[in-house]
């Protein structure tokens, strides 16, 4: 997470790295570094979205037909789960800024549970697709959609949702780490930047799903 080492010390205030003159400058640099990283994440997913768009352009019918075989209920539930977890992580940031450590910890736990719920629902969906044979490339043997290009749809589906799920796992791990530090009492109203940055990463995970959901489930 860039040079976000600000606040790693055991003291209540944030730790000032020796190459920064003031805490303000350090916080500014840390936040800028995080946004820069989020920018590269956007470009990473943009490449996948582009691949999706190109194949959808060529195999419009197959993509439409295949998308109707995804579980819309599971996708919608997962969207609601992620949006709600985005809310709780924003509220956790709000709480720590007001020194409400317990509220912040509770909200972080709720967010982590949401992340787990998302992964479980995704896992059930994947399991279903594996059983049906709706798999990428040469492994495709799903008998209900045989239009040319259907296997490409599932290639894009597994790549993009897989990469997204990987981000959910990373985001969840970061939030668990932040939760541990909140419980140790490391953060307060004058030391909350790590909570803020962990939250930013989590919102990005939500952001990507906001686009993945309609493009994969509702076309």
């Amino acid at each position, binding site marked *: 997470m860039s040079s976000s080492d600000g606040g790693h010390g055991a003291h209540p205030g944030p730790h000032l790295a020796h190459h920064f003159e003031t805490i303000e400058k350090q916080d*500014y640099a840390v*936040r*800028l570094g995080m*946004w820069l990283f*989020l*920018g*590269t994440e*956007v*470009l990473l997913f*943009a*490449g996948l979205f*582009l691949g999706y*768009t*190109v194949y959808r*352009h*060529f*195999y419009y019918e197959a993509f*439409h037909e295949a998308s109707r075989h995804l579980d*819309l209920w599971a996708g*919608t539930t997962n*969207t*609601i789960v992620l*949006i*709600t977890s*985005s*809310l709780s*992580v*924003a*509220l956790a940031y*709000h*709480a720590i*800024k*007001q020194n*409400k450590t*317990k*509220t912040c910890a*509770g*909200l972080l*736990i*709720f967010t982590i549970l949401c992340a787990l719920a998302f992964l479980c629902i995704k896992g059930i969906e994947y399991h279903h697709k594996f059983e049906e044979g709706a798999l990428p490339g*040469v492994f*495709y*043997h*799903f008998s209900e959609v*045989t239009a*040319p*290009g259907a*296997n490409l749809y599932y290639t894009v589906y597994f790549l993009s949702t897989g990469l997204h799920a990987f981000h959910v796992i990373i985001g969840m791990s970061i939030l668990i780490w932040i939760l541990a530090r909140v419980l140790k009492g490391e953060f307060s109203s004058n030391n909350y930047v790590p909570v803020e940055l962990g*939250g*930013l990463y989590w*919102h990005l995970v*939500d*952001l990507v799903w*906001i*686009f993945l*959901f*309609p*493009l994969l489930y*509702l*076309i």
Partner: protein
Amino acid sequence: MAHEPAHTEAGKAEHHGHGAGRYWLVWAILLACTGLTVYTGHYHPNIAVALIIATFKASLVVLFFMHMTEAPGANRLVFSVSLVFTLVMMAGVFGDLLTRNPMSLPGAAPPSEFQPR
């Protein structure tokens, strides 16, 4: 939700900055938009409508959950530039695809080659 009491507690206190009410409002709008996109997508699929709703939802998340409204100019610039380059990439690829000779497109090949195995 298990943490309901904690939520309301945070909602009441508005010591500095804006209150937590803003986050709840954004959440409610995001849920409403999700309902809208599921409805339109299921009954009247239209990629443009889906993308407009998704862009609107994403903007709300970036502006309010991620506090872009309060971010300094440099952070806004860095993030916006990544969006601009996404558009440049899309424009470049589509400029190529849409102006190709039809014979070089996958649809022109014998369909037997594209049957799933």
